[in-house]
């Protein structure tokens, strides 16, 4: 369908190439903003735009000073530490609870399935500002506002829908006869779970965990409301920096975060291919 047949008319040829040029421009629109900050983060001056020296590719126009600033500045380092203290714990909570719930939801008879599903998916649907506002009011009442555990619990709550969705997706294609086969060979339900179901849902669990991790790591609205100085995370620091726009260190941080995204994306892609291979589906 996408090849240009030899008998195509001029109009069709024009449209074929024109369409691809348009798509190329849209892809450019998607990718360019992310790619443009990478060279800008090496700017030797404290500007947010390309200097003449940079455009002429003079080495003097480039420097690592913003990266140095990021790694030596105590504010940024504290923010980085906080992010890495909060995100993993929130991920573990979200993955643990979410996997259990997903397994429960994929059982054959679940009372009030749609209602429960709706409640469990709701953190993904409700606008973040409303969740943040509600949590601010409620957690203030119970004394969790401005504490580490308040932020962790909030992030875990926001991450669970992703885990549920990905694990449910892997369980949907799960062949029940495998369980019956295992039972017929004498395995009890627990052994069946660990030896038969787990290996198949691991890709779903891991990709859900990655989604939950990135949700917590990248989250800024909830942490703005619920956190205090001791929980200042990397995105919060970036947000403050963006408002005041003091230094291009933000661009250095942004570039590092793009690198992290690329790593995560690669991991996900590898997982997807592995799970497709395991199920016997390969790309044509």
């Amino acid at each position: 369908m996408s090849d240009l047949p030899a008998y195509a008319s001029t109009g069709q040829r024009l449209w074929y190439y024109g369409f691809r040029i348009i798509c190329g421009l849209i892809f450019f629109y998607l990718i360019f903003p992310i790619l443009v900050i990478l060279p800008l983060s090496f700017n030797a001056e404290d500007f947010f735009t390309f200097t003449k020296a940079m455009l002429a590719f003079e080495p003097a126009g480039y420097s690592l000073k913003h990266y140095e600033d990021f790694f030596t500045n105590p504010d940024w380092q504290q923010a980085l530490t906080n992010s890495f203290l909060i995100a993993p714990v929130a991920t573990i909570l979200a993955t643990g609870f979410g996997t259990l719930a997903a397994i429960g939801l994929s059982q054959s008879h679940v009372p009030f399935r749609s209602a429960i599903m709706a409640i469990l998916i709701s953190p993904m649907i409700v606008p973040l500002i409303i969740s943040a506002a509600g949590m601010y009011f409620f957690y203030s009442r119970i004394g969790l506002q401005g504490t580490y555990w308040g932020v962790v619990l909030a992030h875990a709550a926001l991450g669970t829908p992703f885990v549920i969705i990905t694990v449910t997706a892997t369980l949907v294609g799960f062949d029940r006869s495998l369980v019956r086969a295992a039972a017929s060979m004498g395995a009890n339900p627990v052994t069946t779970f660990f030896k038969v179901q787990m290996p198949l849902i691991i890709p779903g669990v891991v990709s859900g965990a990655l989604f939950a991790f990135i949700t917590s790591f990248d989250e800024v609205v909830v942490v703005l409301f619920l956190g205090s100085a001791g929980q200042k995370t990397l995105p919060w620091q970036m947000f403050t920096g963006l408002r005041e726009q003091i230094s291009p260190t933000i661009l250095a941080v942004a570039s590092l975060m793009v690198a992290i995204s690329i790593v995560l994306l690669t991991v996900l892609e590898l997982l997807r291919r592995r799970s497709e291979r395991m199920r016997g589906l390969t790309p044509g």
Partner: protein
Amino acid sequence: MKLKTAILAGSALALFSTAAMAADMTLVSWGGAYQASQKAAYTDPYVKMNPDINVIWDESSAEAVAKLRAMNEAGNVTWDLVDVVASDAIRLCDEGLAMPIDPDTDLAAAPDGTSASEDFGDLLVSECFIPQIVYSTTFGYRTDVDEWGGKTPDDICDVFDLEAFPGKRSLEKRPINNMEWALLCDGVAKDEVYDVLETEEGQARAFAKLDTIKDQVVWWSAGAETPQLLADKEVVIGSTYNGRLFSLIEEQKQPVAMLWDAQVFDLDGWIIPTGLSDERLAAVKEFVKFATDTQRLADQAKYISYGPARKSSAPLVGKHADLGIDMAPHMPTDPANAKNTFLYNYEWWADYRDDIDAKFQAWLAK
């Protein structure tokens, strides 16, 4: 499984280690050059003398009132000392969120023996407020704007003059100061500004004057925005705190100059939140006594061009710590700069702030 256990153990350990750190003191301030000057003049020397104290800075002074109210409701006050402007201090004091202090026992006396209450004098505008600096909100303008044909603004009303001085302006996203300047430039005499502003017609008049430049205005909420906007040439005239402009002009050497006309004096200082435990309170009071003594306030003036609040500090103000220039001519209180000034009317704005703020936000959103 092993990985999971390791992660759990690791994070638990990290948690406990952060919790076990000795004597954390959380100070809240405004960020940027001002906070840096406080760090250099107050906390760095204090931490040198008391190495077991760990000072954490939180840049939330702009939302201090809301956050303190939330903390109070939760019964969990995590801040030890909060830097606020005098009007916020009055509001916090009224609502019981800030502790009253006694200047003569809680603050240090001047080296020559004058009591703190005399040394600070009238600047003790509230019983909860510990003044640090006198600063002003004023304008800076770029000196390299071709469209101005060589003229430079030297009068507050030049900000409202789009014909002689075209280009974008930046104003603070709140009515305070903007309303007074608008009325002043609409022909109201300086000592009648607040009487006129009390009436509906007066407020409408101020909004109408602001309407004449509204679509050329970029609204800022953080003090560091205008200097950045001026440096990027996104605006050609912008209001901000005078110390930020000093940094921009003298330290970053940007082509910007100060417009001191009709600058509005204001006070900035500390309040101690209510609800602190006895030991935290004792630690904070010790710090405050050190941080607000004569030498410390004079030291702060070495880093930023804000006037110290104590009379005894004024003669000790010397040169800038890095640049070596005399700080006195850059003070808002210097006679050359202070020919036409406003003093922030605390009583009046304490009463009318809620009312006019709502109207201002409605006007902004249109």
